[in-house]
């Protein structure tokens, strides 16, 4: 069985962001980087599937500059067999369709039975790449899964819907699935696996070789939203305060609308 898991390196969301010189993305200095949280669940599920099927080869793919290799190594330490680094120093200016195109171009001749990705990235949150890649490849896709099991070419999945409801579906491979938080508990890489990961294959491919589609959109400008009455301190009579707060909640949040 051949499995692919696509991951992204994102900044830790605790970081304080600044706008870059071009005004179209966040400044990359002073940021801590990590694997996109949704992708952690994807990697874990892919590794669990490999452990179940036993005769499976699992590739982890990541687009970005040299620094993303650290994140690929973490995926290797979690249990992936080989890494495919799509070398692209300008990955942050690529839009979902281009990314999907790159992935599809990489995957098209490799016969993957299952492709796992996170359902969205923590920074951009477009939630499109997984499904777009599937569409380009002509593969079926199921998004937002919180449960996965596999047997004999059929995946049984549960999609997370609003209100805590789950939709149970089945689909045959080849299949793309996008993973929601809570799908599993991503394992902490053991030290022997971290050491083995250093010796696993990690190939770098130039993005130019794989980018065969044109971009369909771009970021015109990035900026900080205006503070929603930040840090307002209110004192006074309890009844008055209650009135004031209700008004603020109506205006500033969707609550009490």
């Amino acid at each position, binding site marked *: 069985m051949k499995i692919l898991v696509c991951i992204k390196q994102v900044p830790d969301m605790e*970081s304080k962001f600044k706008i870059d010189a071009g005004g179209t993305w966040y400044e990359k200095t002073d940021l801590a980087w990590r694997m996109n949280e949704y992708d952690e669940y994807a990697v874990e599920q892919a590794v669990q599937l490999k452990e179940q099927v036993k005769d499976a080869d699992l590739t982890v793919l990541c687009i970005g500059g040299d620094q993303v290799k650290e994140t690929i190594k973490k995926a290797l330490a979690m249990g992936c067999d080989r890494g495919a680094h799509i070398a692209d120093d300008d990955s942050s200016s690529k839009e979902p369709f281009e990314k999907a195109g790159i992935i599809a171009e990489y995957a098209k001749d490799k016969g993957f039975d299952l492709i796992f990705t996170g359902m969205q990235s923590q920074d951009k949150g477009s939630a499109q790449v997984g499904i777009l890649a599937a569409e380009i490849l002509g593969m079926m896709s199921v998004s937002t899964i919180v449960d996965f099991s596999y047997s004999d070419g059929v995946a049984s999945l549960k999609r997370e819907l609003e209100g805590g409801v789950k939709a149970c579906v089945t689909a045959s491979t080849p299949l793309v699935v996008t993973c929601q938080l809570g799908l599993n508990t991503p394992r902490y890489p053991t030290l022997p696996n971290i050491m083995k990961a250093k010796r696993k294959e990690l190939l770098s491919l130039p993005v130019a070789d794989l980018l065969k589609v044109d971009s369909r959109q771009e970021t015109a400008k990035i900026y900080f939203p205006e503070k929603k009455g930040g840090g307002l301190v209110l004192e006074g009579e309890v009844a008055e305060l209650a009135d004031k707060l209700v008004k603020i909640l109506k205006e500033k949040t969707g609550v009490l609308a």
Partner: protein
Amino acid sequence: MEFTRDIYWNVGHGAWTLIPMYLLAAGAFYVLVKAFVKRVAVYRLGLPLERTDQPGVRLRRMFARMLSQKKVIRVQWPGLLHGLFFWGFGLLFIGTVLIVIQADFTDLFFGVKFLKGSFYKIFSIVLDLAGFVCIVMLGGLLVRRYFFPPEGLETKKDDAIMHAILLVILVTGFVIEGARMAVTELGTPLAAWSPVGLVIANGMSGIGEQSLLGLHKGTWWLHLFLVMGFFVLIPFTKFRHILTTSANYFFEDLGPRGKLVNIDLEDEDAETFGAAVLKEMTWKDIFDADACTLCKRCQDRCPAYNTGKPLSPMKLVNQIGEAAFTSPDANLIELIGKDVLWSCTTCRACEEICPASIEHVSKIVELRRSMVLMEGDFPGEEVMSAMEAAEVNGNPLGIGYAERGEWAEKLGIKSLAEDSEVDALYFVGCYGSFDRRNIAVAESFVKLCQTAGVKLGILGKEEKCCGEPMRKMGNEYLYQSLAVENIERINSYGVKKIVTTCPHCYNTLAKDYRDLDLDVEVITYTVFLENLIKSGELKINAEDISCTYHDSCYLGRYNDIYDAPRSLIAAAGGTLVEMGKNREESFCCSAGGGRIMAEEKIGERINIERVKMAVETGADVLLSNCPFCLTMFEDGVKGAEVEEQLRPRDIAELLVDRIEYTNPGKREKK
């Protein structure tokens, strides 16, 4: 009259005595040695560990500890009983050896007798009293164990045999003496030099001489058999501690206290890390169980055990030994239990008090290393998250690393990257950098230094967690990653002196980091400030405040720093009311051993117990010297609902309120 006695009187000094006697002795020793050789084979199931270097130092230590019984007597009840028993028995043993030397060698071959005259008088009275003291002490220990056992004391069949055989040996000794004196010494001036024997002899005076001779001879042989039996029992019962506990003094760790063994992560051939089975523990880990006498002093002081957690340091040590002898392939983690292993706060109360110099903490950490490094197992998801946060942002709180030095900006403290010409690097630590309550402490420390004219620098966003909580939890890999980064930065700035306000950072930088090539002097803020006050660079106004003081585990037991903080409190004018459990007996706040990252799910909250102890002193303020303790106490006073009565503060905060400015107008009061 000659002050001496005929050694083999009535028993006979011929072959019919000597041959069976020496054969028995040889036989007993043979059994003893053979049994120990077998035990040594079991110790060797464990990995090698160098503990025989500097043999001169080791031997001196061993004899000093053995003979002084200092560690045993430290807990006077029942330590003093054992001490006196030990010395008494020791004297009796020496006495017997002297007798053998004279009777079977110097007298037999050279006709030399030394047990005579004044020497014999002293010999006689000393041994008499020693024997008596031994019986009384042994009696006391027996009564304690069987009639007034303290909670948690386990009594086994082993104990009954030991008490019985020793008691009978001692009593038969006096019966022999009494019988002999009844026949040979009554009415002579020599009798007074065996006062106890005299009493017994008088009591036997009604018995006819023939019966006395028979009684004497029979009891003599019984006594001999029992003593040989005692030697044989040594390897098979707790008696073995006579040899193993003494040996454990020899095998003590001569290195810095509480420093863990570094794992070589460069070793490409290493397949396992940490220990899950016996062959991955060291021989010392198995040997420690043999040195243990189940005195339960460790258990009595363990903060986990005393708040309902399943951890008993004593039990853990013995489970390892037991496994070595009965099921050497057992998985120790399953055997001991994960909850047991995760409960430890590495406070070292167990090791501090252990009279047998057993090392409990390193065993627990070694087993934790296996759980973390080989299985990715943690006490809870919150700990895994904290570890991941430390990987990503260099602190377990998960706050963006770029903000780490921001707290210092308004005080004018620069990072070394901006200005590396400083008197000392202030290694702030994660809580001092990010936690509001502890930032106040860092600010206080900085103000004190600035007042004293000390120029500090910080690493700021280049500083990472010292890695200690991760290391104690077993995550050696993450610890070394963090440490190596810190050390590289520190060395690159040519830092000459580091000062810390966190005892965990202090202990780690001063000891653990030496294995990773940090050679810089590290000093804790309490000593640093004490020096500034002593030299007059920092002046503090004394202003009375009723307070109590908590000795943190990592300044106290790990580093013996008990006096410097107290001198600071005195300089500040504090009226210090000590808690019952202070100094070496201080009761951990619960956050050590990496548990600052974990939730306390079992039993009662350790920090609330400690806060209650502080409240009992009636003091207004609970002073501490550690950000973990301060955090735990702030939580604890809320939990114990004593916020109105007791206020947790750090010593630095106390001092900063009392700075004597040379310019009186600058005085600030809080």
